[in-house]
């Protein structure tokens, strides 16, 4: 949570987290789970 930060600082932090997440294998599983309407089986990869 970023309630004590400015918006731009928070967005930079979010962008970095999101970018790291987007190259993960778990993202592929998460999207597949979303399409198939089931719970994702994340492995931390």
């Amino acid at each position: 949570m970023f309630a004590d930060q400015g918006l731009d600082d928070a967005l930079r932090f979010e962008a970095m987290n999101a970018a790291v997440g987007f190259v993960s294998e778990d993202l592929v599983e998460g999207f597949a789970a979303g399409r198939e309407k089931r719970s994702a089986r994340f492995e931390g990869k």
Partner: protein
Amino acid sequence: MADDDAVLLDIDGPIATVTLNRPDRLNAWSWEMGMALTQRMETIAAERDVRVVVLKGAGRSFCAGIDLKPDVRDRIVGRSPAEKVLNYYHRYRGSHRRTQGIEAIPQPIVVALHGHCLGAGFEIAMLADIRLAAEGTVFGCPEVKIGVAIDCGLDLRLAQEVGPSWAKWMTLTARRFDAALAHRLGLVQEVHPADALFAKAHELAAEIACERAARRCRRRSARSTCSPTRGSTTRSASRR
């Protein structure tokens, strides 16, 4: 490249109506839709006779969240994982500039929500000044369930609108909630039967539009005093 049909713009006197227009996919959010929405809002910002914006979705939902295409990761390339991360980072920062640009347009935005208001759709809804919802609208932040991070400031905006604990309840659990709770928390200002929603949104827009100069001044003032996330944007944006 923006998809011109993904977001429609209709200007009728002082009211601009912007419609997310991928009803066959419940207006699932895509890169193209983001670009198209930005273009529409830039057009509106330059229209001196437009006094208020109504934002809505075509079909059964406002927006069901990000489009879960299998090839989504293939759209950003890099010679190494680190370079891909960097390229994604810059892409997100571009999205931030666009969402902040939407927040900064001089006209107030009234959003009419129905069906689903999830994830990226929730992000877009939170950029509006006033939110109306249809009975039965489902809200939620499903990001943690599909392995992505909230990426355009939704959690910060939620924390500032409803408080940090409710924002954590929404973002950490991904629970869906209804229009009644959204109204109780102050996320939406009015709830209407679904068949009356768009008419009510235009009625409210017409009310706002009737006092042009005063409303614009009030919007600037209201944004700077009531919306802390908009502070830097508001100050840096060019104003008429």
